[in-house]
């Protein structure tokens, strides 16, 4: 199939960017979206132009590195997948596809479609952990955990930190990301010990990074490639209020 791509090009964080139009020909429907970009980049290199920079690594939907805003949606038109899992059979011959980077104050553009998501790391560093040094742990089976709680914690922990929630949120809120980690740890007895301080620290860091506020539109839940539930946001709200009432 033949397609027209409109791709955001931006030299670096300081310079302004703009959308550039590129035709691509003879695209196989078995290609992944990123492989289509590989083809385009080969074309650009052979003409001596600079290829389009984009983030990608595992190409199997788990590392969370790929991050394209395709035709107005993070990771493209299909739900439950990342950009690297999107295949060209989801498009039609002759389509025009607009590709932009994640846009948020907290995710500044590095180059073209590459953004800086280190704000997520700083939120985790603020409290997204259980303070236990290696070697201190008791036997794993000394902490029985009800299976439903363990399953829920796992579902929250499935977050890959790609940032699609922020990218799609009309307010660029990071609530889904932060609440997934808060929930995972709050659901487990090991995590309850620090729960109060954790949620306060993580929310404080989230606010500091410049993310917007949650207005419960639910877009994040729909676009999350791992189906992280809004229930986590409610749980974080609860945890946060209780933490502030008790301390």
């Amino acid at each position, binding site marked *: 199939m033949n397609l027209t791509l409109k791709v955001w090009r931006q030299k670096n964080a300081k310079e302004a960017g703009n959308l550039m139009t590129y035709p691509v020909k003879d695209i196989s429907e078995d290609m992944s979206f990123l492989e289509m970009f590989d083809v385009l980049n080969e074309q650009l*290199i052979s003409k001596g132009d600079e*290829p389009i920079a984009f983030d990608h690594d*595992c190409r199997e939907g788990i590392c969370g*590195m790929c991050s394209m805003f395709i035709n107005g949606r993070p990771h493209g038109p299909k739900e439950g997948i990342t950009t690297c899992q999107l295949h060209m059979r989801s498009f039609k011959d002759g389509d025009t596809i607009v590709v932009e980077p994640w846009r948020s104050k907290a995710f500044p553009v590095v*180059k073209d479609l590459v953004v800086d998501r*280190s704000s997520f790391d700083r939120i985790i560093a603020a409290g997204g952990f259980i303070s236990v040094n290696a070697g201190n742990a008791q036997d794993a089976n000394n902490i029985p955990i009800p299976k439903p709680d363990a*399953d829920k914690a796992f579902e929250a922990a499935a977050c890959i930190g790609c940032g699609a929630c922020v990218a799609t949120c009309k307010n660029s809120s990071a609530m889904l990301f932060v609440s997934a980690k808060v929930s995972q740890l709050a659901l487990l007895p090991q995590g309850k010990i620090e729960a109060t301080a954790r949620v306060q620290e993580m929310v404080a860091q989230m606010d500091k990074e410049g993310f917007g506020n949650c207005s419960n539109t639910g877009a994040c839940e729909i676009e999350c490639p791992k189906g992280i539930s809004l229930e986590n946001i409610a749980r974080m709200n609860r945890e946060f209020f209780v933490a502030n009432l008790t301390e």
Partner: protein
Amino acid sequence: MSKLDSKIPEGTLEEKWMKFRSTVPLVNPSNKRSIEIVIVGSGLAGASAASTLAELGYKVKCFCFQDSPRRAHSIAAQGGINAAKNYQNDGDSTFRLFYDTVKGGDYRSREANVYRLAEVSSNIIDQCVAQGVPLAREYGGLLSNRSFGGTQVQRTFYAAGQTGQQLLLGAYSALERQIGLGNVTMYSRHEMLEVVTIEGKARGIIARDLISGKLERHFGHAVLICSGGYGNVFYLSTNAMGSNATAAWKAHKQGAFFGNPCFTQIHPTCIPVSGDHQSKLTLMSESLRNDGRIWVPKKKDDTRKAVDIPEEERDYYLERRYPAFGNLVPRDVASRAAKERCDAGYGVGKSKMAVFLDFAAAFERYGKQQVLVLGIDNPSAAEIRKHGMDVVKEKYGNLFDMYKQITGENPYEMPMRIYPAVHYTMGGLWVDYNLMTTVPGLYALGEANFSDHGANRLGASALMQGLADGYFVIPYTIGSYLSNEIRVKPISTDSEPFVAAEKRVQETINKLFAIKGKHSVDHFHKKLGKIMWDKCGMARNEKGLTEAISEIRALREEFWKDVRVTGDANEFNPELEKAGRVADFLELGELMCMDALQRKESCGGHFREESQTEDGEAKRDDDKFAFVAAWEYKNQGSFELHKEELVFDIVHPTQRSYK
């Protein structure tokens, strides 16, 4: 006299590690504060080492090329992590895990290292659970186990099909905690491009800030390489696009010997290549072989649809060749058998390089059980199939969805097509019992070292090794080196060795830009991958390997004359990153072929066609090849082989048989 001293402690197998831990020199807490450690890589090994060493009080600098330490490719491991907990009361023990691992590695690993691995395996599970890693549980609230990779005990802990992700995020959270406390400085989007050695000891690295393009000098009293494996030599593999051998290779060129480079693991159940555009291969969990039957048509070039081929015209070749193990033979055996059928012209699909993995029998078997359970009388065949499908969906639904997503085919209606793909490299930097390479102060952990898996890695053992090295081995073993380094003040990065190392890196970069050739980096990478896959892949022979070596040399020469690297050095430039990595692969690939050529035996993942039994099975030669091949870098294209003899005091090598 061999240059290799494995430093295995004295004593019986059971005593070695305990004695070592009790007698290893310690570093006083106040001295730890002034000792700096550089860690390259933030996967299971790197993140766990960084957090643990920081917890002990060392000053740690951790580097990763991704935008966050959480992205390291450990995250993609699906199946699970082994530990000799014996929670299932089925007779597991440290010894049994040790025994299985040595045997599974086809008797090419070090007994003492593997025993230590088995010993600390339990601590890993404890540590991860304490960190909040949500491992699967039973209804009683205790941890669940499954059997994996054909072992007879249930010792694999898991978190659905995302065990690697959960364990990595656990290690990542521990790392971020130390970053938050200021004990670790994290350098994301940084790539290590050189090891700095001073007076024969590793004293730091040169790293490139991938965003600004600036070269940076970083001092460390010790340097830990935790950069993973080199499967991407083959271009197509289940590794991440960015996975590379550069850190390990630079270490090698600075004096670290490379151990068993030819030992690569080819995983049998991957989604086949669909065309020239293919950029990577996707693994489908090995667990599929528990219920799927593998077959090809009995007729060559059969173009009929799978469902139209009658039962008697199908060749269930694994069941035919290995009646005892059938579809559950180990990875290396299953992979070679698939290649054999496809090479003989029986492959399926457009490319003819695939075999069927069929669940029709499972649909029926489970369906029949299910209609009994549900009390359905006189069920129709379609009803049975539907209920069977529901059971299969429950077990493997996510894998079936993944297959459909990638291929566009519905595996509930037609069999999956699978083909082997490069998955893991058992080889890596040679290390002693302390995980130190042949360069003092330079360590290698996780997949980057060669140590524990011999010639073949068992399922669910990679995660175990990465975390064992980082959480429980290096914190002790590094003390034996650093306790002698406490008087060494941080060395100025303006000193001559740092300046010279940076200059070497800068010259390579300049050279790459100066070529201004015609072909992209990927062009060369694909060519290298094809040579490696065809001649140093699942089956190897003297002729092919000899050809491969000269072809790789020619390709390398062509690369340095004709590669085109676009953009500038002082900016974010993925093409430059790739170019540097492929340049290293072009050297490593040659060494892999040389190693495969010298090892005139078949063992584990390494199959030499000259060394097989009459019925085509791998044949080891313990008299001549019970050693670790450790290669010393001389200059480009020239390596010296050193041998570390392997002594088996406990587990006596036998020929593996799955008939």
